[in-house]
């Protein structure tokens, strides 16, 4: 039973537009959420995180939004660039414990 789900396996966006990647979770005890980015043949790299006491965290072109009542978070990339093309993993943890990952969404940003 997957506690973290990314229901869109892929997303295609035009360069310069907004990319919105979604993630849903089922465990209400999760209190920390992270996004990782992964290029082919490389390991995931940390992108941005958010604590459950916040509903938004911004870092440059990347913003993560958390809706606790809906158990939903999203990653916004504005403006999208071709170099953002990668697989994005959502992950969650409870009290700093083990990370539970979603299955990833492959983002393709077209010039």
């Amino acid at each position, binding site marked *: 039973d*997957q506690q973290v789900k990314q229901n869109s396996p892929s997303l295609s966006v035009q360069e310069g537009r907004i990319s919105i990647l979604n993630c849903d979770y089922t465990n209400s005890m999760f209190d*920390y959420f*992270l996004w*990782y980015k992964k290029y082919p*043949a*490389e*390991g*995931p*790299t*940390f992108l941005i*995180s958010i604590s459950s006491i916040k509903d938004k965290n911004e870092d440059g072109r990347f913003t993560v939004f958390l809706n606790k009542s809906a158990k939903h978070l999203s990653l916004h990339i504005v403006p999208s660039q071709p170099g953002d093309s990668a*697989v994005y*993993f959502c*992950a*969650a*943890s*409870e*009290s*700093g*414990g*083990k*990370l539970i*990952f*979603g*299955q*990833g969404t492959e983002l393709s940003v077209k010039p």
Partner: protein
Amino acid sequence: DTAVSQTPKYLVTQMGNDKSIKCEQNLGHDTMYWYKQDSKKFLKIMFSYNNKELIINETVPNRFSPKSPDKAHLNLHINSLELGDSAVYFCASSQGRLGGIQPQHFGDGTRLSIL
């Protein structure tokens, strides 16, 4: 300088064999992890060590045995390999025991294929 390095990058072997994957980090972190990415692309934690102490041990077959000779190294030994062990195995590290908060740094993965 590679922060988290794992070897080999590719491993092709026969069912029933025993194999090891090595991982080293030069970030000075005190916690290391092994993850398995299966065919459905989910990354699932297998083990975690903090200062050579096992702190996370998920439900994995006891054919999998991690070994941490020091806090910079975490190796994974697999006995009697089975077809279902085919996957990409990632090593990672972070500072502190709260791996769910501190960003983890991943190696580039070892693609294990069982014939």
